[in-house]
């Protein structure tokens, strides 16, 4: 993985000094809160319901075991012993003191990490496929480009005060695992007909109040031009994006208002002036950065390990875990393992300091000391020998990290919602916990099969509810919390925005609502059809009809403030 050189270290060091002084000036009242706000946001610091929240970047989702251990240390020393992995390949700490933040940033810098531009109206942490570099279906490794773009976006002077936040995602596999269609810019690394490498450029996707899928504005952009072309996009957006209304300020609104063709033409005109300039990427720089992402020293192994096959045959629980949580690898004899952070009773994405340390340990012992964070809020050990899977499984199980539910209904994406977030209309963590409780039968869960359930506590859509096969959105009705349900959303190659099925429900009704939706699916599915395929084939009508046919009883839900009662 990428390692800082002296320049990277210097830049991060100077940032911390700058931020330390900003905090000092804020505490001395030399800065108003209004002035401090964008400064702290660009350092990842939010004010939340109970305390400050610090969001730390995991650039394109990759980190070392050393960095992971630092996360555990920060959780213990400066927070309440846990952290929250998010859909944007970040980790968030919910209970941070302002005065501690410069020191936390110093601790992070000591392991080549930072919280730069994890928030605010600037280019955010770049996200990517969690299996980049190891996926069996990978066409081109996107990580060198992601790192080059990380550096380009870091403290870009012209684009630090954009109309709104700006998110870039990059994918290099056949299957899109980076949800590129719902990003401000979605890049796919591709080959053209001549076999040259470049990018398919999508722009104007996003969720929030107005969910829109991105439009392709360029089928092929030679890789050398990625920075100048993005500069052109950002300059157009910076000048023409709406600033009068923050709900209409995202680039998706601009692209939609003028049309993707017109927008593309403007970008091309802007780009013509800077194309081939010094910001053009060089072969030497690409090679330098790519060298950091070379393959580890894989052993040469048979593609099938007999003992592993035997364990699978003998042990159904192990086989289930393999089926759900273990992914194919490009190298024979290896696999990638998803450690599920979706154990019943624990908020999706939360991990204790002990678990974080333990996962760092696993990475050291089983996976070349490297890890990934997924946008479904799970963790990945990317390079595990097949022959080690059984031992690894037993250890992970003992630490509550082997719930065999990846890609299933209980592998939910869920934002922090009303327990932590000051923007929430409703809680989301207790809804997730209650639904997980209801679907606690593993056989049943496996029978339902692949299903993406996403929950957001408000229309900002941090929980990706729009692209959930089933989406749950917290809404406020006369001061009470209710939940609106949508069906048919999808991420990936066939991204789609879900459709709302009808009037919203109370928290206590939600597990039954989901159960009814599943009943319709099980009743109407054709053999081997996934939930999303049934939903898209039938539309929402049969679900709507059945869910609302008879009244749904409300049951006694968790309902308490997860922010204060969650225990591990």
């Amino acid at each position, binding site marked *: 993985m990428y*390692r800082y050189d002296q320049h990277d270290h210097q830049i991060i060091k100077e940032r911390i000094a700058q931020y330390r002084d900003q905090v000092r000036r804020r505490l001395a009242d030399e800065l108003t809160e209004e002035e401090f706000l964008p400064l702290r946001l660009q350092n990842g610091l939010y004010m939340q319901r109970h305390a400050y929240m610090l969001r730390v970047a995991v650039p394109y989702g990759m980190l070392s075991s050393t960095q992971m251990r630092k996360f555990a240390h920060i959780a213990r020393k400066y927070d309440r012993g846990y952290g929250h992995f998010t859909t944007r390949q970040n980790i968030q700490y919910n209970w941070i003191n302002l005065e501690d933040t410069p020191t936390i940033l110093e601790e992070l810098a000591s392991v080549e990490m930072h919280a730069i531009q994890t928030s605010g109206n600037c280019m955010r942490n770049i996200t990517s496929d969690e299996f980049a570099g190891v996926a069996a279906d990978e066409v081109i490794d996107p990580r060198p480009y992601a790192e080059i773009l990380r550096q380009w976006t870091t403290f870009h002077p*012209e684009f630090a005060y954009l109309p709104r936040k700006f998110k870039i995602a990059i994918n290099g596999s056949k299957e899109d695992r980076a949800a590129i269609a719902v990003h401000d810019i979605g890049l796919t690394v591709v080959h053209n007909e001549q076999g040259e490498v470049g990018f398919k450029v999508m722009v104007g996707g996003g969720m929030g109040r107005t969910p829109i899928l991105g439009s392709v504005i360029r089928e092929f952009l030679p890789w050398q031009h990625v920075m100048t072309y993005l500069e052109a996009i950002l300059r157009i957006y*910076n000048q023409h994006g709406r600033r009068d209304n923050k709900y209409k300020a995202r680039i998706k609104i601009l692209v939609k208002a003028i049309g993707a063709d017109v927008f593309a033409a403007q970008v091309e005109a802007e780009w013509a002036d800077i194309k081939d300039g010094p910001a053009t990427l060089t072969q030497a720089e690409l090679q330098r950065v790519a060298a950091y992402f070379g393959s580890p020293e894989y052993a040469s192994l048979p593609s099938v390990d007999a003992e592993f096959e035997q364990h699978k045959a003998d042990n159904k629980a192990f086989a289930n875990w393999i089926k759900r949580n273990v992914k194919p690898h490009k190298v024979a004899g290896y696999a990638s393992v998803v450690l599920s952070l979706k154990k019943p009773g624990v908020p999706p994405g939360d991990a204790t300091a002990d678990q974080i340390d333990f996962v760092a340990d696993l990475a050291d012992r089983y996976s070349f000391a490297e890890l990934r964070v997924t946008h479904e809020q799970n963790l990945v050990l990317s390079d595990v020998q097949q022959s080690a899977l059984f031992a690894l499984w037993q250890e992970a199980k003992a630490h509550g990290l082997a719930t065999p539910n990846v890609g299933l209904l209980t592998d939910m994406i869920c934002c922090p919602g009303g327990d932590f977030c000051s923007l929430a209309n409703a809680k989301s963590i207790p809804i997730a916990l209650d639904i997980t409780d209801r679907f606690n039968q593993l056989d049943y869960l496996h029978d339902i099969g692949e299903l993406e359930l996403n929950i957001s506590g408000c229309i900002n859509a941090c929980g990706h509810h729009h692209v959930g096969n089933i989406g749950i959105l917290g809404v406020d009705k006369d001061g009470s919390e209710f939940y609106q349900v949508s069906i048919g959303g999808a991420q990936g190659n066939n991204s789609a925005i879900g459709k709302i099925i009808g009037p919203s429900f109370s928290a206590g009704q939600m597990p039954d609502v989901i159960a009814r939706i599943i009943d319709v699916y099980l009743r109407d599915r054709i053999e081997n059809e996934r939930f999303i395929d049934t939903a898209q084939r039938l539309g929402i009508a049969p679900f709507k009809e059945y869910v609302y046919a008879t009244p749904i009883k409300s049951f006694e839900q968790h309902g308490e403030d997860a922010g204060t009662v969650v225990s591990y």
Partner: protein
Amino acid sequence: MREIIKDKAIVQDDWTVLRLAEGETPDAIEVPAGKHIIPLQVWLIQREELSARLKKTQDLAIWFGSAEQAKDLGADAALFPLLAVDFPKFSDGRGYSIAYNIRSRLGYTGEVRAIGDVLRDQLFYMQRVGFNAFATREDRSISDALKGLTDFSEKYQTSWDEKNPLFRRTERTGLSA
């Protein structure tokens, strides 16, 4: 006379920014004698009358509103001793692209000044996109603001101040320890 930051030093400044008051329009407003930084629209509408004065006295400059663009002034830019860009709020970042374009597209080499809600923590980025003068907010210490120009000694990407990205400027080491 107020103080501003110019070319990294605190200097006295005798320019006055002319802003339209409520009800005033760019066609009707009369530009008083003396050194004035006038709204772009006033220039565009009163260009004929103001041209002669500008030639003679060089006591006119232009400021851009954040919704305006460098290209709106075009080749006229070269006539002025000073161009300013207004920041109605420090969080409105359009002025950064305007300044960048004033330098790179209009090829303007005179003074480019940031006016309005200009604060210490924006100065480093502002100088990178082409500003060399800053009329920082008068209710804040200007000597403190001056420190904002030196927050960083290194930068990754190109902008007006730096034509080459880091990877073209230095031999970056391969794999570090």
